[in-house]
């Protein structure tokens, strides 16, 4: 009989205050045998006459049991901890199994949670074939649902009743697994040695902590995870044959690393804890070898029988339950009302797409777009990516300068459509209206949760002249900023890591495209980090990663930093009072004088402003006020920079394009207007369409510019130089082409290398240069002598400059044609789409230029970009139940939620 020869070992380490409960429960259940308390607390404990053995606090549970057994001759040992208390009948139930079944070596009780006595904490352990440990029942309400279970792979250490012969023959728990998995390993080895392990549901004990917590006290989730991974690695490598051990070790660490990355992407705390544990386990080679030798000597009966292991389907089921639980907790915590992108928004997006395709249909199917401020992108993704961190630009006959953030952005954006980098530009222009609608709608979520107001903002945003003037003048920077701005407003108003990630990416896009918006972004981020989320300041990191070389380079003339990026193009923007119409050109309307059109534009702004004042004062929406502060920043920037000449293009000085700055003001005004209109419940149904219609009517001319062919941008081929030049330079790269354009009082000379300058090569440094390079003087000398009949040695000059072709952008009847033809050493190729082309007879050896990129720029941008991207990857599913606030009329469309 077991009860005749029993040693009860109570190990106390972290919870001596509970020890008396344990001992009292033992006494209450009339458990026979000697009770030995192994005191590992380092202090004295109060006992009621039980034997006490004092040990070092670092002593493992297994060794503690061994110490207790030294002085005992009992045949059975019941292992308890200070946090366990025995319920009546527990011992009897356990002992009866050992008594009746001689083949059973180990039995364990059903462990209930001490804090919640009806919840199962643990009831037998198992693992997957790949070594993941699992509790058979874990944190489940006890409804006797597991009470038919008996034969299990393992039982937990708390309350484990084990035959002394089993304990000694297996040398107790593996010393390599002091914290976690010791019991599982012990039971597994017992089974391998031919013993059975059973859990006894009628034996019930209460435990307060896990085995790891009993050893180490409070442990964090990541510590537990690391320890679990270490135990798993140990298990897998010990039980398997040594021959495959290196491969399994490799597989384990790789798998853990992969899962670590997934957790990293999901922005979990300590994502690589599992990997660190796996590595620690794998590297503990001595312990593995020792344990394996011992395991081999003991093993008589390999553990088979799939029923003992956790099946794959069971595993999936458990994981699904776990995720569902996490999600429910998260959703319960998230009670902020948000603007959702639901069916109404979908319908209006569809409408905007149709409108966009009608108005911008001319761009569909184009291989490239050019005109105005737009020239084609490079033809391959490799060339586009080369622009990231490029220090060499072919503009102005070739120059070296700090890497350009916008060129890098274009390189990244262009490689999104890696088969044709121009496609992304064409798509951006063709889909500007629907993209702006979605952006405006989503962005309205920063100030309102009312979907009707958001539709007004979105529609207004898609119709604004700031967008359509930018589209028709080919200002890709302004189009990008227009689409990104409202999204930035929405992102920066959030407080999660996800919204911070998006805010950082969007702020980089806005800042890099239109540096004049940098003050607005700074103010927005500072407001945000002062009023709520201090970490919002990190949203500036990607923008700075793009722009630091340019900022450093602009120190000598800081104002030029704010010049528009890309190809500079003159603006027709009015200054002074007229610029308060918030039109990026002079307002115009067919059949109406400019004065009247300007007046109409003023009226629109005034009405929007009045409605915004109502929204601010009456609707008490503080966020509109914040948007107006941003708008004021933008207007102040325009007041400071608007009248200046900031860049050079084709020999002309170019000022700032105010569209993106006005956009910031417009966003505040549109939001305020939309909130006020939507708040007038009885009239919103017809006021909203009227507001949108007025905006469409006032912006009629720019809105229809593309459709009526009035836009400067038009579909073109990818080439910027004649096909002949392109074909020749493909065969012999490095040659330059001199492009001469007669002007009113002279000639414009431009040198382009290879197949011509692409959009990514127009760096800010090239556009804002103030001095001529040495080689430019030589080019000027050559150009001036070419267009007159002169005794100039053209051959020597073109060889010096590496020029292989000369293009005269003029009619074949221009007087310069015969002058150029009069020079020896040039052969006329003919009239091309770009002008009249000559080839230099002599074979020109092109001197190669140093095109190596700035690696520090690439590295910093890559790292910062990666962190921002990871932060921005959405890792949770959308809310299943929208949270309504009192502004939102509750409708029946709860089911059709999207996000």
């Amino acid at each position, binding site marked *: 009989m077991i009860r005749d020869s029993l040693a009860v070992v109570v190990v106390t380490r972290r919870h001596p205050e509970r020890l008396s409960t344990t001992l009292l429960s033992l006494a209450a259940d009339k458990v026979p045998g000697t009770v030995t308390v192994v005191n590992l607390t380092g202090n004295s404990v109060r006992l009621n006459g039980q034997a006490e053995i004092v040990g070092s606090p670092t002593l493992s549970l297994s060794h503690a049991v061994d110490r207790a057994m030294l002085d005992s001759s009992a045949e059975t040992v019941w292992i308890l901890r200070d946090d366990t208390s025995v319920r009546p009948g527990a011992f009897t139930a356990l002992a009866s199994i050992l008594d009746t079944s001689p083949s059973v070596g180990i039995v364990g009780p059903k462990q209930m949670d001490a804090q919640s006595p009806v919840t199962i904490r643990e009831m037998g352990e198992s693992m997957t074939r790949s070594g993941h440990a699992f509790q058979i029942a874990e944190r489940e309400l006890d409804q006797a649902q597991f009470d038919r279970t008996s034969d299990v792979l393992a039982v937990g250490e708390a309350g484990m009743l084990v035959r002394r012969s089993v304990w000694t023959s297996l040398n107790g728990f593996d010393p390599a697994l002091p914290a976690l998995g010791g019991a599982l390993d012990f039971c597994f080895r017992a089974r391998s040695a031919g013993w059975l392990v059973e859990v006894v549901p009628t034996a019930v004990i209460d435990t307060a902590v896990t085995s790891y917590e009993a050893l180490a006290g409070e442990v964090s989730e990541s510590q537990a995870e690391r320890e679990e991974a270490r135990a798993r690695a140990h298990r897998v490598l010990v039980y398997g044959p040594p021959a495959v051990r290196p491969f399994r070790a490799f597989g384990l660490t790789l798998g853990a690393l992969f899962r670590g990355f997934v957790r990293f992407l999901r922005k979990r705390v300590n994502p690589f804890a599992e990997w660190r544990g796996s590595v620690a386990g794998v590297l503990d080679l001595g312990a593995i070898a020792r344990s394996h030798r011992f395991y081999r000597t003991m093993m008589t009966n390999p553990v088979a029988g799939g029923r003992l292991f956790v099946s794959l389907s069971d595993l999936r089921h458990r994981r699904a339950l776990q995720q569902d639980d996490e999600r429910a907790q998260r959703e319960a915590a998230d009670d902020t009302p948000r603007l959702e992108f639901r069916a109404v928004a979908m319908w209006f997006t569809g409408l905007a797409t149709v409108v966009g395709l009608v108005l911008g249909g001319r761009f569909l199917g184009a291989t490239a777009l050019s005109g105005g401020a737009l020239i084609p992108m490079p033809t391959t993704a490799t060339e586009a990516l080369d622009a990231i961190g490029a220090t060499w630009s072919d503009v102005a006959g070739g120059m070296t300068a700090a890497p350009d953030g916008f060129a890098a952005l274009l390189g990244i954006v262009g490689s999104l459509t890696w088969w044709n980098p121009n496609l992304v530009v064409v798509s951006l222009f063709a889909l500007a209206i629907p993209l702006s609608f979605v952006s405006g709608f989503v962005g309205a979520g920063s100030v309102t949760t009312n979907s009707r107001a958001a539709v007004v903002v979105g529609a207004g945003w898609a119709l604004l002249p700031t967008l359509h003037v930018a589209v028709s003048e080919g200002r890709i920077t302004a189009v990008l900023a227009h689409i990104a701005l409202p999204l930035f407003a929405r992102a920066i108003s959030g407080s999660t890591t996800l919204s911070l990630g998006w805010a950082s990416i969007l702020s980089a896009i806005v800042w890099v495209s239109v540096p004049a918006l940098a003050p607005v972004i700074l103010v927005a981020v500072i407001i945000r980090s002062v009023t709520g989320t201090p970490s919002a300041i990190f949203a500036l990191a990607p923008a700075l990663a793009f722009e630091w070389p340019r900022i450093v380079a602009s120190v000598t003339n800081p104002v030029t930093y704010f010049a528009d990026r890309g190809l500079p193009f003159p603006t027709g923007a009015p200054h002074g009072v007229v610029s308060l119409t918030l039109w990026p050109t002079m307002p115009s309307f067919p059949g109406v004088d400019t004065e009247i059109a300007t007046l109409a534009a003023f009226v629109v702004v005034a009405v929007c402003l009045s409605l*915004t004042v109502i929204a601010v004062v009456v609707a008490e929406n503080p966020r509109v006020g914040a948007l107006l502060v941003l708008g004021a920043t933008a207007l102040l920037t325009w007041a400071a920079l608007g*009248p200046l000449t900031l860049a050079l293009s084709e020999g002309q000085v170019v000022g700032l394009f105010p569209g993106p700055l006005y956009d910031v003001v417009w966003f505040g005004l549109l939001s305020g207007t939309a909130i006020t209109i939507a708040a007038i419940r009885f009239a919103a149904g017809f006021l909203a369409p009227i507001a949108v219609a007025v905006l469409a009517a006032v912006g009629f001319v720019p809105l229809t510019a593309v459709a009526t062919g009035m836009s400067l941008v038009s579909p073109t081929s990818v080439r910027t130089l004649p096909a002949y030049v392109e074909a020749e330079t493909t065969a012999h790269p490095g040659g330059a082409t001199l492009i001469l354009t007669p002007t009113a009082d002279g000639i414009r000379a431009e040198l382009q290398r290879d197949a011509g300058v692409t959009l990514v090569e127009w760096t800010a440094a090239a556009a804002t240069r103030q001095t001529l390079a040495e080689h430019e003087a030589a080019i000027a000398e050559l150009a001036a002598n070419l267009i*007159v009949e002169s005794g100039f040695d053209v051959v020597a000059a073109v060889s010096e400059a590496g020029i292989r072709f000369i293009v005269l952008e003029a009619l074949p009847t221009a007087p310069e044609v015969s002058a150029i*033809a009069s020079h020896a050493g040039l052969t006329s190729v003919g009239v091309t789409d770009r002008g009249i082309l000559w080839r230099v007879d002599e074979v020109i050896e092109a001197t190669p230029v140093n095109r190596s990129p700035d690696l520090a720029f690439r590295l910093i941008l890559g790292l910062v970009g990666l962190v921002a991207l990871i932060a921005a990857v959405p890792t949770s599913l959308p809310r299943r139940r929208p949270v309504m606030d009192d502004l939102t009329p509750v409708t029946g469309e709860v089911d059709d939620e999207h996000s």
Partner: protein
Amino acid sequence: MSILSKITIGAAGLTALGFSAYSVAFIPTPLSTGIAPLTTVISPWSVTRSIVCSGDVVGYVGDSAIISSISPTTRVVSGGDVPADLARDSTTNGSVFTNSGDSLHVAATEYNSVDTESIVGYLATECGDPLNDQWLIGGSTTTGRDTIVTISNGSDVEARIDLEIWGSAGKVDAPGSQGIVIPAKSQRSYSVAGFAPDEASPVIRLVSNGAAVWATLQTTVVRGLVPGGLDRIGPVAAPNTSISFPVLHLPSEKSIGKLLVDPSYSDVVAALRFLAPGDADATITITLDPYAEGEPQVVTASVPAGSTLDLPITELSEGYWAVSVESDQPIVAAARVGFNDASKGITDLGWASAAPAQTGVASVMVPGGSLLGLTNFGASDATVTIVHGGDIAEKVVVPAHGNLLIPVAKGMLTVTSNSPISNTIFVLTRDGIATLRGLTAPIDASSVVVIHG
């Protein structure tokens, strides 16, 4: 958030917006960038300016169908080198002068008076810089009238010429007028009658692909069996809305009145020829301003788009007149005046090409004592420096919208002005009349402004 703080934020936003709007409208920016166009002014090396003279008086000798030389012309050159002659089919004719010194101060004029059984009259024309696109207005191809276009290519590159011809009934569909090849250093002459037969008022546009060429029209008149009228007409570069003929001499009623009894002498009456080559009819205002005492006469007319219009000028007193034309559409124009010397029995015609408004140095060789007419289209007075007769320098002021007539001596004449000025020299000899224009270099080759793009 309390209502008060919400309203405070809103009020702060509105105040900030108001202040920024005020600063946009009224506060000038304190910043500057110093960015200015990057330009370089280059003086090209040893500039070569070539001016081309058409050469001999040409025509059909006897019954020959080939245009050949009838009478040589006298060429006077200043600042130019020994001429290089241009090749015709078997002979040479016409010359290229290249500058020996300053490319701005080179000029040449060819002139002659002819009195043969087929041609009688006086001819004087400036030699000029070749053009790729030029208009020739004048002549006639009706019975007894002969108009020959002479195209001279002084360059080393061949020229491919396309002619477009307009007549009083619209554009003339002229066979063989496209793709005329003029080899390098060569000259070719074609009768306009071959392209547009029996056309009373032709206008020719001559476009060259490749080398620029110098083209002139030579027109002769034979009435019955009596020759009487010769002139050579220089080209104008482009249609314009302001056209001037700074000086024309209208003959007295006494000298030509008796001739007008014979209808074949109708072309000794002064006339203006217009063409509006665009798609729209042009409304023109002609101002005839006498250099003698008198009020200017203003005539308004409409020029139909695409067809030439000859407007006779009658009932004006004898003397020197300045004629200017303002149009609402770009037009080309030329003026014709008659001459008759009853004592010698010589009748002549003079065609004046429109004088372009030019700045800088315009130079011309004056074959004999003549009158220089200057027209200022500008709204302010123009100060013009005139050097003639070798070293006679004068500084004159041409009033705004006014004209000035100055006698000039034989020899090199330069007209230098900083504002656009048109000039014409009217040559009146006992053998006939002619007009000359002082032309500037096509590109101011002394300094070229290069803009870096």
